[in-house]
């Protein structure tokens, strides 16, 4: 029984251990690394990415993919900056952004499911659309100086005398908790796993496959928009070329966190640790000082490669095991 649980969560386990090892290694190697604030900064700097990765994780578990998220972030930043400059109420702006993100997700999900268009292509169109729309608003960067936004951005929640987090971190953690509950304890969440595991079976078991597939993209669009709002707290500006390639970071986080890109397996917490691992690699490289920041990308890619091969080995072993069982039966 114990072994079963271990193997089921084996990848998550590896991810968390890896995170701890990296943190430990950094602490031993660099002076000033081992501090609460360095740890908390991982959350502060990556809050938006955690939020995006949560939404994307659901899409990946369902067996789909969403490469529009980075552009959604850019568009949300751009449009909210523009609207705020024109004197809109900041809360209305935030609500509107979430609505836009969800609606965009719904449209992509709809054409993916009902018109049988590959998720990659449909969300590619979404990516182009959002990105293009940014430049219709403006081709240059717009500053956000709305007092509500700047207050939220600068507010520090003190956890200890020398350790604080931002409001964004609270939002991100809430999203992670909500996502975990949704994945583990809601009918929708379990149905997402079922659809990703075997869509045809899920259909025959009476699950509303179409609705679930569309909803997953709505969720991803919502999270991307929320991530976009959090990101505009972080940068206090909007710019159309912001965050190019972010979708691949989010996907990589999920994979490092144990999500199978074939669908059916993955966890929200895992994806969060995936983001944190990328963050810690970056931090180590900054502490090292003399390394080009591009090593981050190379390191992340190597990890990605390692995890993907690990997944292959695990699933190949499982097949072998199944065959053995069949034979003995």
């Amino acid at each position, binding site marked *: 029984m114990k072994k079963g649980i271990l193997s089921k969560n084996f990848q998550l386990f590896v991810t968390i251990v890896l995170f701890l090892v990296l943190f430990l290694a950094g602490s031993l190697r660099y002076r000033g690394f081992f501090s609460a604030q360095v740890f908390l900064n991982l959350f502060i700097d990556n809050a938006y990415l955690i939020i995006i990765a949560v939404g994307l994780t659901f899409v990946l578990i369902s067996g789909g993919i969403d490469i529009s998220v980075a552009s959604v972030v850019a568009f949300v930043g751009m449009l909210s900056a523009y609207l705020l400059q024109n004197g809109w109420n900041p809360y209305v702006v935030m609500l509107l952004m979430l609505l836009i993100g969800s609606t965009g997700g719904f449209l992509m999900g709809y054409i993916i499911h009902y018109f049988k268009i590959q998720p990659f292509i449909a969300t590619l169109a979404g990516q182009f659309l959002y990105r293009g729309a940014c430049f219709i608003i403006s081709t240059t960067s717009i500053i956000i100086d709305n007092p509500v936004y700047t207050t939220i951005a600068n507010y520090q929640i003190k956890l200890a005398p020398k350790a604080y987090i931002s409001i964004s971190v609270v939002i991100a953690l809430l999203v992670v908790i909500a996502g975990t509950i949704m994945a583990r304890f809601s009918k929708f969440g379990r149905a997402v796993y079922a659809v990703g595991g075997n869509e045809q079976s899920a259909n025959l078991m009476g*699950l509303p496959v179409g609705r679930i597939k569309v909803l997953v993209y709505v969720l991803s669009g919502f999270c991307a928009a929320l991530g976009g709002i959090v990101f505009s707290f972080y940068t206090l500006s909007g710019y159309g070329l912001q965050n190019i390639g972010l979708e691949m970071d989010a996907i990589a986080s999920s994979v490092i966190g144990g999500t199978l890109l074939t669908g059916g397996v993955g966890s929200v917490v895992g994806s969060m640790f995936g983001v944190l691992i990328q963050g810690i690699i970056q931090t180590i490289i900054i502490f090292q000082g003399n390394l080009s920041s591009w090593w981050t990308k190379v390191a992340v890619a190597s990890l990605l490669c390692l995890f993907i091969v690990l997944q292959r080995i695990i699933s190949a072993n499982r097949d072998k095991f199944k065959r053995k069982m069949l034979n003995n039966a």
Partner: protein
Amino acid sequence: MENKEILLTMRKISKTFPGVKALNNVDFTLRKGEIHALLGENGAGKSTLIKVLTGVESMDGGQVTLEGKPIHVKSSQHAQTLGISTVYQEINLCGNLSVAENIFIGREPMAYGMIDWKMINKRAKELLNNLNVDIDVTKTLDSYPVAIQQMVAIARALDISAKVLILDEPTSSLDAAECKELFTVMRKLCNEGMGIIFVTHFLDQVYEVSDRITVLRNGELVGEYEAKSLPKVELIGKMIGKDYEQLQQIESAKKAHMENKESYLTCKNLTTEGNLKNLDLEVNKGEVLGLAGLLGSGRTETVRALFGADKILGGELSVKNTRIRNNKPITAIRKGMGYCSEDRKSEGIVGELTIRENIILALQAKKGMFRFIGKKEQTKISQQYIKLLDIKTPGCEQQIKNLSGGNQQKVLLARWLATNPELLMLDEPTRGIDVGTKAEIQKIVLELAEKGMSIIFISSEMDEMLRCCERMVVLNDKKKLGELSGNEKNEQVIMEMIAGGKSV
């Protein structure tokens, strides 16, 4: 038993697919507490009838009543809420979810707005215990063997508190002991008042467990019978119908060139990736060798190993006295072998390619990529085989997916004949094919053998095997039980061998 209350009736059910009348005014009645076998050859309309009943397909005409009330099943969800549950042949569950979850997904018990996992695991355990299965329900489904998965599927169907339970070929991947287990469960459920529709192609099992039998043929109802009062031979007659005689006409084709036994292929002590165990086999030139046994007995695994599709883990394989190591399909092809898989759709045809390209494929692979066969030559070769095998098509530039099953099978035969093989392995070459084409293919097989080609022939239909094969190797549980030739081989002996092999 006749007095039992009627549970479900289907009256004058019709369904037409483009070009095929799949069901034509079919009637079906299920009573409470009975096991009702639904029989028919492939293409008889069994699965269409089931699909109509479970809402996967809509019917064109007819009426369905459940407990006296007319119903219109719209979808499989709807069928489930009405109390009609199905366990399909291929297990339609999600391997990545836990056993318990597979039973309850979509209908999870909730507590405080969240899924109540404790309850799910507890009830799953109880349900499976009822079916005499005791396993850890929190493990993922794919960590269990198929037989257990089948039981989980049944448990799921039962929890929907089904009135009607449909079992579509549930035994095809179970061994004898597991079948027994399943039948006990089926009986138990019947005694609780459920009606069970049992679809299978194992006739012995029909007699073992069913009360009543309905036979379909070519989308029409042949009749409904009491299992006790219908002898097996008569049942087969009803399933095959008048075409039975047509099939017998080629009986005569047995020839007497048994003497020149020159060996083409031998394997010793073969153990493979497909779980074949210590198999010894010899194939002679110009003979039709049958591999007999039930589904999953190792028939397919044997030919796959010879053809290099499954890895050989131990033992020796030699063709014409040369040992073959590291066997791959291309090696086997160059050694003169050909293999028609039982799964025509996913392992045979290349759907969007033309008939010409499908025919030329293996020959081109045999020649290698750079010795390209020009288009003119390709057309010539394919037209030659279209004529030879009487493939019904407007031309060789048709996409193969547009052909009927029988003609697709002929194209696949042509693919291998074009490579001019010395050994042709045919796994269920006549499955799902109309009777006329079936007889044609059997005839072709015998003619080829006469010309000196060795053939390994596999079929689930014993008559066909007896008719075509000179010699038979009987397999069970991935092991060879023995060989039969000449007058020794008849259905009785083979069945007894398999039955005997099981008890060991």
